[in-house]
């Protein structure tokens, strides 16, 4: 670990924090339907869109109507993306003449992008045409993120409103998230990325003759426009197979820094949107503080583990940290930080290969996802995930003092707690259930590239990443098979909709309640005690659920590495 490494980490935190208030204020105006800087340009366009679609912007939906619209919209998006992938061979903008994507891979990839997971069973440059990347993936990067934002906004309205049945309009929230928040920022970011060296072209690959006389075919494409939304929308699906480790997808250390900032920007600012909409910004800061504590612990552990190498490299007497799978321009600190950021949010882009991280360095990304990505989290998804934990924390606090729990003036009753537990329990069911299945079936055991406990970690990481809608991988796993493509896609669907729909049900139930004024018996939810309780609840639920699986994978591997043990495949 170097002082410079810590300065980079501190600088990162400072920039993200500085963005919380301005971005939070802007997004609040957008979702409250107020005038913004962009209204003169986008307003007429937005109204025209509603007219053609037959949407009355003032007509609000109940929680069921809101959930139905979301499911319908996502289902239609899935069908469109699946069709594009299957038909890409006959569609334009296919200079590398990629063949149609196989049915199981197309199913997996479509599910993956509609659920904002962006798991890469596909190898970008070897599988997809430019049209599939743009019309298919870039598009879903926007709208899957927008629909996550919409659900979070609806849940916030559940807290901020009283005695009403409606939560807003899914159509309006999704459209406004796309047009006012994501798109303008992406245009600026994409041009910045090109200035750093990221390609943005429809021309075919560059054919070069290297200095030693060899042939090198260099894949290019419309990269920058996709990377901008891939990060900002916490999608994470790469244009290239190596994702953000690829020099074209992440050309400079500065581009890397900006990418990391944009992964957290919207998620962190959403805590401020929450505070503003419920009328007390301190409530938002308290939630961000709980996220921040968990984040900093993760960064410290990963940075320490990667800088001290361990395993094969240390045993050969090499110093300088674990550079296997990392790029020179980023080094140890920026790679470790990226790994924690991308799994704390539900991004899943990687600028270094997590599979080659040390045992404990790889444990942190795994834990981040198992906790449900509530540390800042995906755009929208992080906030509604954390609010579900808040309900459990408030419930626990209520049990301790024997009082009906309240949060922000709303009584938390059996229905809310049941829905919260449904969301919390579905994640481990998909993560651990499928992992268990894959470790006993031959089709599952064919996947891992590494032997010993690391092979188990590869499987566990895959289902954890899929159910958490993250999309990063221990990339050694051969996942482009019928078994993995199908089971991973099911895990993604469970992880997305079995949280979103309970979150909306909670919102509907809360919105219908009256607001009770705070009394002397009300537990204050903006102070250190509440932050500590929330962190404790997240860690206890996560720890109780996942510790055995972690002990079988990264923890036992750590002790094997310290003892100098190695594992050979096929032996």
């Amino acid at each position, binding site marked *: 670990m170097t002082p410079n490494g810590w300065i980079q980490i501190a600088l990162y935190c400072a920039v993200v924090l500085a963005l919380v208030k301005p971005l939070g204020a802007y997004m609040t105006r957008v979702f409250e339907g107020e005038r913004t800087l962009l209204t003169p340009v986008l307003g007429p366009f937005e109204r025209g869109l509603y007219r053609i679609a*037959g949407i009355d912007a003032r007509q609000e939906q109940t929680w069921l109507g809101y959930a139905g619209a979301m499911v319908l919209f996502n289902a239609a998006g899935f069908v469109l993306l699946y069709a594009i992938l299957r038909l890409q061979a006959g569609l334009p903008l296919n200079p590398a003449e990629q063949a149609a994507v196989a049915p199981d891979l197309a199913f997996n990839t479509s599910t993956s992008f509609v659920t904002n997971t962006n798991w890469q069973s596909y190898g970008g440059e*070897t599988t997809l045409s430019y049209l599939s990347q743009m019309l298919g993936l870039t598009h879903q990067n926007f709208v899957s993120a927008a629909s996550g934002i919409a659900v979070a906004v609806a849940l916030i309205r559940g807290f901020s409103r009283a005695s009403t049945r409606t939560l807003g309009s899914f159509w309006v929230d999704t459209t406004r998230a796309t047009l006012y928040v994501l798109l303008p920022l992406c245009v600026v970011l994409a041009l910045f990325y090109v200035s750093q060296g990221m390609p943005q072209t429809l021309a075919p690959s560059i054919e070069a003759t290297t200095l*030693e006389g060899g042939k090198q075919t260099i894949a290019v494409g419309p990269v920058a426009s996709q990377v901008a939304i891939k990060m900002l929308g916490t999608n994470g699906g790469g244009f290239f197979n190596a994702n953000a480790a690829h*020099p074209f997808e992440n050309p400079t250390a*500065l581009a890397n820094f900006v990418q990391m900032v944009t992964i957290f920007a919207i998620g962190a600012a959403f805590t401020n949107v929450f505070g503003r909409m419920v009328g007390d910004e301190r409530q938002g800061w308290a939630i961000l503080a709980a996220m921040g504590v968990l984040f900093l612990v993760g960064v410290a552990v990963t940075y320490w583990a990667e800088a001290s190498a361990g395993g094969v490299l240390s045993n050969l007497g090499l110093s300088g940290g674990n550079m296997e799978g990392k790029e*020179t321009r980023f080094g140890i600190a920026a790679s470790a930080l990226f790994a924690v950021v991308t799994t704390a949010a539900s991004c899943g882009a990687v600028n270094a290969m997590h599979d080659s991280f040390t045992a404990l360095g790889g444990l942190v990304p795994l834990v981040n996802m198992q906790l449900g990505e509530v540390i800042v989290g995906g755009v929208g998804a992080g906030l509604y995930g954390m609010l579900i934990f808040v309900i459990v924390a408030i419930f626990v606090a209520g049990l301790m003092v024997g009082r009906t729990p309240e949060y922000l003036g709303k009584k938390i009753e059996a229905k809310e707690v049941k829905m919260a537990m449904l969301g919390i329990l579905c994640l481990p069911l998909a993560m651990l259930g499928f992992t268990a299945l894959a470790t006993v079936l031959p089709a599952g055991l064919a996947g891992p590239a590494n032997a010993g406990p690391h092979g188990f970690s590869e499987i566990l990481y895959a289902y954890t990443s899929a159910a958490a809608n993250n999309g990063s991988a221990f*990339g050694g796993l051969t996942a482009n098979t019928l078994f993995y493509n199908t089971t991973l896609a099911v895990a993604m669907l469970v992880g997305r909709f079995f949280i979103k729909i309970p979150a909306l049900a909670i919102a509907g139930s809360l919105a219908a309640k009256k607001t009770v004024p705070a009394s002397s018996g009300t537990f204050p939810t903006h102070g250190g005690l509440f932050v500590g309780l929330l962190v404790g609840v997240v860690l206890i639920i996560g720890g109780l659920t996942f510790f055995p699986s972690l002990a079988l994978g990264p923890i036992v591997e750590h002790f094997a590495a310290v003892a100098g043990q190695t594992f050979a495949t096929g032996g």
Partner: protein
Amino acid sequence: MLNQLRPALVLLVALTAITGLAYPLAVTGLAGAIFPGKAAGSPVERDGRIVGSALIGQSFTGEGSFHGRPSATTAADPADASKTVPSPYNASNSAGSNLGPTSAALAERVKGDLDALKAERPGVPVPVDLVTASGSGLDPDISPEAALFQVPRVAKARNLPEDRVRALVTSRIEGRTLGLIGEPRVNVLALNLALDEIARR
């Protein structure tokens, strides 16, 4: 539910057209006008021929060249398309090794490279980036230490004084952005091109 079908389909088509076509095409047009070289992938030309990209590493094996980092990229086996064979710096199929911290294959690979480098410079510590594969397999850079490590070999093969080659390496070191962000590095292709320039003069 049926009355929701029209908004769902119209919004889907409209947002697809905006975010999937208009946005990437507008950015392509703007980027090509403002940063034409970078938007095209930063191709590097010498004598009118494209020799690579400034951002993409390529394979160097000669004694008189600076070498990049090990690359784990593969290509389809020409004899059997269902298999792959190692193909370092294959810029149409980026990949890392994905070998874990207790992998016997990793231990064997690193030890082989390490022994060769130790034989080249006995007693000098080997920079870790020279024996570890990059994440993309296309890393264009090595650390300044890794470049300086190779100076005696390159100078000898090229019949140049070591000081001259060392000075060239030092002049090619790119520092951290704003002195803070990222790590110092040397672009291997640019360094080898500069080395060739000395020979041509």
